[in-house]
């Protein structure tokens, strides 16, 4: 069975500090991977997607970056957090492209102060 794990579960960070959120998928090789973000009371927005190791496409510009260093790992990061980065970050995977079922991880809640 496939499992998706995100870390950390929650984080409180200062404005201007760096951030690194992680996501790993076990039990599935070469998945398509996605990062989503939802501000409190807002809409779930797709930020990045990756179809293979080393390849990441940006969908929404939020002063964040993403990398896929391994087949089963997706990292979301920034060197300087903004207040507007607060929210809920979800990682997801699918077998093929966006028209396939997306399986979401448990999410990371981020508060920037």
């Amino acid at each position, binding site marked *: 069975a496939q499992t998706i794990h995100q870390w950390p579960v929650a984080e409180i960070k200062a404005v201007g500090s760096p951030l690194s959120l992680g996501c790993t998928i076990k039990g599935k090789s070469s998945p398509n991977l996605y990062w989503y973000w939802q501000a409190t009371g807002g809409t779930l927005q*797709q930020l990045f997607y990756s179809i293979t190791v080393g390849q990441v496409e940006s969908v929404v510009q939020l002063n964040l970056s993403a990398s896929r260093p391994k087949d089963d790992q997706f990292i979301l990061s920034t060197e300087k957090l903004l207040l507007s980065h607060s929210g809920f970050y*979800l990682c997801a995977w699918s077998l093929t492209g*966006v028209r396939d079922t997306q399986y*979401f991880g448990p999410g990371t809640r981020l508060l920037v102060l």
Partner: protein
Amino acid sequence: GQQVKQSSPSLTVQEGGISILNCDYENDMFDYFAWYKKYPDNSPTLLISVRSNVDKREDGRLTVFLNKSGKHFSLHITASQPEDTAVYLCAAGAANMQQGTGSKLSFGKGAKLTVSP
């Protein structure tokens, strides 16, 4: 602007009734339409999806209706049950979109369905 809109943020239905959730979209290039269900403190899970080459798909108590000319799709839940109470997110997407957006899935804001006993 928001490409997928759920105009009604909440809906209450009596147990046994039909729940109808609606979604409007803007982008003509969307060719995939889906409904996700989300319980509090849980992540969204796919309920049902449909491609643009059909205008209806049924799966048990769930039916998705797609109106391409009206850029509208809906989810009908028959014989609604209290366990159907959740937030329902509609989503639309297309692979290989132009303008560098690639494979993007756009979500609506969600609508809370409450099924009362």
